[in-house]
């Protein structure tokens, strides 16, 4: 049995976000961000429903990643912009982030990488929980290896385990599966959908099928300054089957929207 197989089999002991901190709705009010003096978006309002996956598609350079970074607190927002939970609190300390590259530290073992957050905050890392999570993503045997010894799919699963280890109610993901081959990508989508169930997730992606498999809401961001269209809401619980006819019909619709959006982007 390869590690990829073990990730698929059986029910996995993923914990829901702890009850004290149930996944909140996330609201972005009047987001504005300038890039070299040109507003990427202006007065943009955006809501991520609580405990649901929101997917964001759009042409390259439209500002998807920038919007995600703004929510993560990584991009300096304009004075008028506000990012809050549904209850009005700040999002600080309630977010976990997963990027396009795995961002694993090459000198540390997989296990140490999973526990990085605790180390950085000066907390005592929970080794047992980290091992359990590695088991859950099918990487138990790789716990003491260095990232360089892992395949691309395994590395991204290690990054997923690190994200889960943070146990935050809001998860922001910036094209986390885009560098993987087709089969690994499908498996990781399934794994992520189960592992992150019940959390408020934002997934920025270039892959319309990925968005339709995973998203409760699928938005297309287009134009400059960028606007959001009315979301698509695919039916059924994620991860949806890629071969579902209803999904494929939506796929055609979404591709048409993306083509239209691409035509508006000033070069």
């Amino acid at each position: 049995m390869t590690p990829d197989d073990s990730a698929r089999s059986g029910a996995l002991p993923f914990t829901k976000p702890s009850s004290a901190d149930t996944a909140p709705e996330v609201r972005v009010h009047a987001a504005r961000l300038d890039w070299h003096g040109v507003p990427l978006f202006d007065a943009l309002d955006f809501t991520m429903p609580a405990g649901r996956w929101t997917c964001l598609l759009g042409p390259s350079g439209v500002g998807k990643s920038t919007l995600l970074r703004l929510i993560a607190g990584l991009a300096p927002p304009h004075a008028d912009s506000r990012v809050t939970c549904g209850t009005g609190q700040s999002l600080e300390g309630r977010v976990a982030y997963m990027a396009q590259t795995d961002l694993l530290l090459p000198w540390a073992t997989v296990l140490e990488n999973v526990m990085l957050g605790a180390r950085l905050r000066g907390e005592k890392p929970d080794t047992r929980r980290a091992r359990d999570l590695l088991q859950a993503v099918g990487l138990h045997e790789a716990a003491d290896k260095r990232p360089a010894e892992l395949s691309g799919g395994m590395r991204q699963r290690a990054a997923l385990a690190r994200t889960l280890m943070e146990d935050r109610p809001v998860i922001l993901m910036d094209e986390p599966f885009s560098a993987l081959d087709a089969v690994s990508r499908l498996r990781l989508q399934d794994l992520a959908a189960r592992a992150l169930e019940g959390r408020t997730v934002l997934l920025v992606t270039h892959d319309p099928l990925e968005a339709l498999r995973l998203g409760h809401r699928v938005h297309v961001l287009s134009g400059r300054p960028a606007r959001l269209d009315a979301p698509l809401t695919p039916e059924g619980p994620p991860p949806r089957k890629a071969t579902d006819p209803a999904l494929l019909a939506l796929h055609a619709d979404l591709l048409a929207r993306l083509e239209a959006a691409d035509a508006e982007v000033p070069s």
Partner: protein
Amino acid sequence: MSRDGLQRLGRTVVTVAVLLGLWQIAFHLTGERRFLLPSPAQTLEVLVERHVQILEHAGVTFAEILLGLGLGCVLGVGTALLLASFRPVRRWLMPVLVVSQAIPVFAIAPLLVLWLGYGLGSKVAMATLIIYFPVTAAFFDGLRRTDPGWMDLARVMGGGRFATLRHIRLPAALPAFASGLRVATAVAPIGAVVGEWVGSSAGLGYLMLQANARMQVPMMFAALFVLAVFAVALYTAVDVLLRRALPWVPDDGRTS
């Protein structure tokens, strides 16, 4: 021994043999003016006959080099950490560092001897000065070029400045530090020997000057040979240690 190892050994033997052959040919070409260049055999004779004296002086030079290397590294690492941690320090210290490098160490060697005397101190200071800059520059550069993705991750995870420095920026800068240390190891003997030439009472540089004054050219070559062997051995040792200590750094082909 592996096949690779055997091949490497073979290459080394051939290189040394060719160099010795060229030396021997050059010796014959000098003809009447034999005093210009001793033969390999004459040099070996001096090495064997006067090994006690040579080793005594070699010990002094090696001590200077090793102390300079240690001191230069500690100061360089400290400076780089200061520069990377505090922006005001960077603004004030960086220009001073650059200016200090514009002054050739050789030009201040007489001053160092004047201030620190003929003993070990002035030579260690010379070696330290010459090692300090490559180590500082390389390590600081490494600390500055942390993958921005890692910095984003650390920020979202709530890592403080110093925790991020310790757990991410510092280990990430170690390969750059290793390159700086390799350069420093290669230039360290220069500092010690120049210091000895300017003014000293012991060391291989002193031995060469004395031999030069008395036209004992084989002795000069013997001292030079010992210095070269030590320099190569030191570089190789540092290189091997760094490879062992940083196993995750991709190996870009063997240099030793």
